């Protein structure tokens, strides 16, 4: 199911030079600033742009090379565009059924999965942005694709619609059996949805790594964004009903989070934002912070004029901490130094 991609396009202002293999399982996020070539890669994979200087093969089948060209409609790819692009002359139900590749029972299951049963008779023009995008995803899945491609599906939406749509994408990420390739420029979306990350800049592949590594690599732009932070896989080992505290085992050590909806044994993904991590030289027992972990400073890089970004090794995990230059000077921090990482908040996905 893996996709081999090789491009060497040099045309005017447009460059795209990369060679990589996109995993045949889970979610691969393609990130990078606008103009970096993210959407181009997705369109090439889908066969929507005829780029003769690219070679694409999926699971050993050549989709395109110098001799062969497989058109979009034969590639079995689902594609969700930035705008939902529903067919305006058809109802929601007709849009979902458009490919004619799913049975009625399958269509009903999709409508249920995306919470659009009540909208089936409506015309697209009467739907909200989030509703339209849910219909678009259901429509793509109803064509039974072997790969699902999404081009910033949350981009055109307001905050409310984004919050409404994201849980559906998270469920999709957990349940989808086919690979999902997700273009995004939002670190928070990547943190919530991606298993692996391809970082593009100026049409070149900067990195292609698992999400936890890419997000905490200070050499990549992801670690320097406002929402930068570390990803940790966690398992709930105990729930303290009296204190309303969940004890979670992670590669960084045991973390505590005031969440009562969790059950013992549950696996989940944590995001620890760089801005929520502070450092101290000794293990304060007089701190209000629950999570204090011994750490070693792995690297220090400039953030801006007043702040530094520190990459920390905590147990077997990497965390990011954003602190002021002033604090770093005061604590005399340097690479290799042992410190304590104090984690103010743990976001749970």
């Amino acid at each position, binding site marked *: 199911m893996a996709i081999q991609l090789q491009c060497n396009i040099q045309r005017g202002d447009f460059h795209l030079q990369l060679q990589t293999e996109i995993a045949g399982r889970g979610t691969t996020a393609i990130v990078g600033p606008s103009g970096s070539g993210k959407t181009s890669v997705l369109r090439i994979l*889908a*066969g*929507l742009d005829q780029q003769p200087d690219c070679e694409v093969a999926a699971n050993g089948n050549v989709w395109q090379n110098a001799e062969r060209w497989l*058109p*979009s*409609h*034969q590639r*079995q*790819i*689902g*594609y969700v*565009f930035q*705008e939902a*692009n529903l*067919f*305006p*002359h058809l109802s929601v139900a007709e849009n979902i059924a*458009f*490919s004619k*590749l799913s049975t009625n029972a399958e269509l009903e299951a999709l409508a249920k999965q995306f919470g659009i049963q009540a909208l089936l008779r409506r015309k697209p023009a009467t739907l909200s942005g989030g509703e339209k995008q849910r219909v678009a995803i259901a*429509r*793509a899945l109803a*064509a039974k*694709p072997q790969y699902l491609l999404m081009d910033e599906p949350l981009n055109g939406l307001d905050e409310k619609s984004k919050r409404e749509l994201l849980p559906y994408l998270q469920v999709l990420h957990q349940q989808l059996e086919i690979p999902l390739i997700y273009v995004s420029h939002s670190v928070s979306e990547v943190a919530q949805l991606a298993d692996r990350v391809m970082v593009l800049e100026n049409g070149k592949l900067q990195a292609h790594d698992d999400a936890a590594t890419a997000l905490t690599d200070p050499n990549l732009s992801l670690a320097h964004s406002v929402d930068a932070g570390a990803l940790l896989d966690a398992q709930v080992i105990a729930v303290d009903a009296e204190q309303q505290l969940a004890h979670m085992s992670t590669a960084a050590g045991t973390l505590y989070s005031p969440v009562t909806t969790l059950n013992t044994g549950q696996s989940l993904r944590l995001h620890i934002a760089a801005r929520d991590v502070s450092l101290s030289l000794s293990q304060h027992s007089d701190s209000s912070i629950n999570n204090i972990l011994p750490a070693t400073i792995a690297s220090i890089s400039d953030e801006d004029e007043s702040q530094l970004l520190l990459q920390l090794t905590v147990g077997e995990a990497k965390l990011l901490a954003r602190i002021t230059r002033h604090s770093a000077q005061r604590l005399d921090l340097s690479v290799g130094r042992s410190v304590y990482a104090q984690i103010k908040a743990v976001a749970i996905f």
Partner: protein
Amino acid sequence: MLAPDDLTALGLTLQLAAATTLLLLLVGTPLAWYLSRSQWRGKVLIETLVALPLVLPPTVLGFYLLLAFAPQSPLGQLLNSLGLAPLAFSFGGLLLGSAIYSLPFVVQPLQNAFSAIGERPLEVAATLGLNPWQRFTRVALPLAKPGFITASTLGFAHTLGEFGVVLMIGGNIPGETRVASIAIYEHVETLNYGQAHSLSLTLLLLSCVLLALIYRRQRVAAL
């Protein structure tokens, strides 16, 4: 009321307009689709030829058609060798002339409608597994529906009002080439104003009703 002659002329006019519109939809749809999608630079040449009847005096067009329809012309000889009747002064000739004359009125609205769809809905359909023919019939045609309504109306109405081309290539044969506009002209020439009035008024009302119906339908479709 209308004289039997005038009724025949009116019937022939409607027949000609309907046949022309049908022929133009058949020929114009693929042509308009090609023009809306083609990246070929030379397509401006085709667009020019399509638009030519808009600016050309109908008599100029009629004159060249008359020459082309002559039995000695290459077209005439071809028809003759196929055992077909010559086109000049025949309904078939009128149909061909009307079709050329009304071509831009059908092709241009269709081309605009196809262009307005943009690439995106067709790309969506492709990723949903539809082949090019399915994309055309299931996405492009339904989305271009307003364009088809406009094109049919304009094609029909424009053929109703045709005069110059018919005069040049059709003449005035009752039941064969004598359409309403020619009949009116003849009534006026022979100072038969009463009959000219009846027929003119009929055409006027017919056109009004036709346009009103289509505008109403378009408004309903837009809602």
